[in-house]
């Protein structure tokens, strides 16, 4: 691994962790504007994280050492997973050590510790959040894997940088399998990142919270890490959808000019995706928990149709 590759890797790592709160702030701002409010500034999440970092951290009497270790594990696993997705350039060493299945595995590791942390304090909220979270993720996994399969069958690779380069080399093509896989993946992304209509990231009502229920006991720097990890996860899915399905603009080398234009393209695409997310959150209402299997079955159906269209329609006579 030479110096440029290492610098690129570090650059990507720090870009992700620095820009994730900005994306979350942007979504909140667009949502506020759509709801006829002024909304907080897009930099508000940074201020929130700083505020949490300097606040006192409270730990319940009944918590075990796992409670204190979990935020660090969740944060680093999500950060590592995010860094494997190409953001500004496809010439990454990180993409070599982790393909898309490893990314899913790292996210599952983060989720495991998050749910354990929820159950650690011994309250009903944590158990409820943990149970619902594992339920939703169990149903979302097959849909996500199907979408990945469709991609991998077309591009013959699970390495995300290879898939992006394959897409760029093909030119503009109207593949029905990709359209279906994209729709399926968007629905899965909404479920996994806990946005409306699956989960409301701004609620603390017992009947409606899933992610918030698991981190209810956290405060101070622990809460800052958990929130930051959730923002990183949103950015991961955004970058995955933006760069794998709509790869135009991403750099393929490591020259400074290429990187700058790749960054600009990434920012524009993520901005558009964030605005679309905000619009859908404003237009839809949160579903009750037992409607979520229908939602995820739709995602699975779309991904399955993507696979079937690939096999039936695209493999040639």
């Amino acid at each position, binding site marked *: 691994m030479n110096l440029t590759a290492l610098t690129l890797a570090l650059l990507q790592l720090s870009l992700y962790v620095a820009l994730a709160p900005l994306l979350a702030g942007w979504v909140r701002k667009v949502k506020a504007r759509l709801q006829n409010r002024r909304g907080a500034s897009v930099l508000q999440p940074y201020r929130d994280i700083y505020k949490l970092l300097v606040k006192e951290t409270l730990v319940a009497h009944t918590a075990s050492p796992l409670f204190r270790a979990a935020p660090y594990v969740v944060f680093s696993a999500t950060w590592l997973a995010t860094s494997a997705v190409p953001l500004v350039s496809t010439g990454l060493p990180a993409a070599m050590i982790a393909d898309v299945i490893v990314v899913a595995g790292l996210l599952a590791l983060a989720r495991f510790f998050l749910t354990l942390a929820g159950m650690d304090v011994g309250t009903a909220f944590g158990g409820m959040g943990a149970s619902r979270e594992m339920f939703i993720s169990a149903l979302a996994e097959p849909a996500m894997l199907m979408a990945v399969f469709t991609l991998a069958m077309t591009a013959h690779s699970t390495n995300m940088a290879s898939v992006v380069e394959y897409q760029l080399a*093909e030119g503009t093509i109207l593949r029905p399998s990709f*359209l279906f896989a994209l729709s399926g993946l968007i629905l899965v992304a909404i479920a996994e990142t806990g946005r409306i209509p699956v989960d409301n990231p701004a609620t603390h009502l017992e009947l409606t919270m899933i992610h918030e229920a698991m981190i209810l006991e956290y405060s101070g720097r622990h809460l800052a890490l958990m929130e930051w990890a959730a923002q990183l996860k949103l950015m991961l899915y955004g970058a995955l959808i933006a760069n794998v399905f709509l790869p135009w603009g991403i750099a393929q080398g490591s020259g400074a000019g290429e990187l700058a234009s790749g960054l600009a393209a990434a920012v524009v695409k993520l901005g558009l995706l964030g605005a679309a997310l905000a619009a859908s959150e404003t237009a839809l209402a949160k579903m009750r928990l037992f409607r979520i299997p229908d939602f995820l*079955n739709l995602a699975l*159906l779309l991904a399955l*149709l993507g696979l079937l269209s690939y096999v039936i329609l695209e493999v*040639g*006579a």
Partner: protein
Amino acid sequence: MSFESLPVLEQLMLAMAAMALFTSFVLLEQERLVAAIHAFAWQGALVSAVTTLVAASSGLRHLYFSALLTFALKALLIPWMLHRLSRRLELDRYAEPLRRPALVTMAAVALVIFSYWLALPIMHENLIFTRNIVAVSLAVVLIGLLMMVVRQQAVAQVLGFMSMENGLFLAAVSATGGMPLLIELGVAFDVLVAMVLFGIFFFHIRESIDSLDVDRLNRLTETEEDTR
């Protein structure tokens, strides 16, 4: 030959055919009647779009008329009639929950795979590339029949029947470049007449047995089993 080497028109054709398959899944699973009628309208629109593209890429002029006819009939007129019918039968907000949706979806997917397997021998012959769409249209037909089996409401059964006809039309267009125009017109007017008759029928059924649940049509037997 792979997907990338096809001209844009034909790629678009395949995309539209795949979306038509998706609409038949939506028709199958949709609980609310009005939404199902809209899905059927979209299916008709997609089928007529495929017809237009086939006309454009193969140069068969009469297909443009077919496409226009299909669009007017299947995407505009018949959905409007069904909409009006459901309003008069007071079924506007009717929603019939599907029993065992997972099983129904799995059966539909199995039908798609089965029709793909059936169409494989055709696909090996070196004719127009649109043979791939034959599998999809066969799947649409079978899923329409499955819809008629699974759904209890009479209007939903009509939708299933109509979507079968959509599938057959798609198969004809893609495999043989459409039927002769005279037959097209005849079939289209047959469908229209069938729609009108269905409408009249439904009123009669509802008056006889006070419901549009086709399972209850067995009340019309002469024997005394009316202990429902």
